[in-house]
């Protein structure tokens, strides 16, 4: 009897939680399913019945988007910028995090403070200065310039994530490596990096998702159509020139798919990395 009563109470206690999770799923998943449905419907169909189902499904819209609407170019621009920026920010950030976590050197505290202060700077604050600097060094309206801006603006978060994890690796391991004959760089590359892999995956995934969706810097620092990244390309379809909701939805799906794939592969390692960093 007593257990039954407690069981009942447990279930009642869970109702608000389940309701909350349901509501949250609806709020986050709903718009996604809606866009997914719209991506398979023509703009005319969408205006007739905004919430209709994709029947018949116009799969050819993805081909059109890729070939006729320049999404192919936007996609490769995004891939180029994000892959290079994430690779650079990971390697540079990991080196910085390793040094800050492992070595006591003069000015270390100051360097640490300066790098992490980048975390609190709102990106809007940097726009004007970045615009001027990129103009001066002839990198305005280039993908290279955007890569540099992405690396610079995301180094702070990368160092923050990695340093917390690297600092937890026992010092004895590094002393042993030094006696075994590893050089300083090998200690970083062969000890810190493999052991810190969960944190590195976290940083890579987070940076990839954030940069893949980045809009503000891209819209200010790129002007040519052939140089646009995906978020800008999508905006173009709902801009002042045209209102092609259907094509914008198809573009959104093209942009979202890589993120879903990456998240599906890395989410578990990523959560491990995030919580490991948190319970210091």
């Amino acid at each position, binding site marked *: 009897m007593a257990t039954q009563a407690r069981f009942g109470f447990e279930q009642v206690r869970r109702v608000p939680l389940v309701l909350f999770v349901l509501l949250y799923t609806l709020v986050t998943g709903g718009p996604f399913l809606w866009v997914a449905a719209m991506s398979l419907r023509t703009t005319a169909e969408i205006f007739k019945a905004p919430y209709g189902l994709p029947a018949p499904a116009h799969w050819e819209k993805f081909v059109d988007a890729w070939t006729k609407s320049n999404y192919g170019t936007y996609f490769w621009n995004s891939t180029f910028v994000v892959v290079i920026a994430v690779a650079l920010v990971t390697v540079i950030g990991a080196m910085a995090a390793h040094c800050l976590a492992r070595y006591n050197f003069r000015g270390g505290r100051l360097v640490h403070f300066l790098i992490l202060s980048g975390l609190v700077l709102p990106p809007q604050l940097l726009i004007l200065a970045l615009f001027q600097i990129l103009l001066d060094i002839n990198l305005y309206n280039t993908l290279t310039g955007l890569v540099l801006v992405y690396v610079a603006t995301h180094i702070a978060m990368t160092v923050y994530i990695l340093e917390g994890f690297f600092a937890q690796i026992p010092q004895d391991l590094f002393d042993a490596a030094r*006696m075994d004959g*590893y050089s300083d760089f090998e200690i970083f590359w062969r000890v810190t990096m493999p*052991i810190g892999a969960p944190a590195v995956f976290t940083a890579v995934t987070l940076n990839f998702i954030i940069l893949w969706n980045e809009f503000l810097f891209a819209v200010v620092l790129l002007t040519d159509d052939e140089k646009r990244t995906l978020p800008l390309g999508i905006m173009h379809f709902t801009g002042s020139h045209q209102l092609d909701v259907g094509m914008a939805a198809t573009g959104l799906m093209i942009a979202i798919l890589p993120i879903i794939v990456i998240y599906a592969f890395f989410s578990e390692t990523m959560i491990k990395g995030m919580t490991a960093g948190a319970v210091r």
Partner: protein
Amino acid sequence: MAVITVDKLCKRYTGGAAPAVSDVSFTVADREFMVLLGPSGCGKSTVLRMIAGLEPITSGTVSIDGRIMNQVPAKLRDIAMVFQSYALYPHMTVYENLALPGACTLRRESWDSRSS
């Protein structure tokens, strides 16, 4: 094997108020089994780390077979050390863990023979 001589060894950590090790001298003969005993925090680990080359020496000397080792990097001192925590490389196999010092020495020697 070899003779280890520690002479007037001192260590002051940067920011440390008192010296962690002051004026330690002893000799460990060939094949001698030597034990350092003392309360926690008296500087045993610091002495060992200075002998191994993991910690810079503030003053005094560490010599192995009569050769002063103060400026010799840890990897060239040919010393083995067991740490308080196990210090095994978790991403390597048992074989790789054991073979690493030898592999590093081999690589170093092949470099030396190539450059000379």
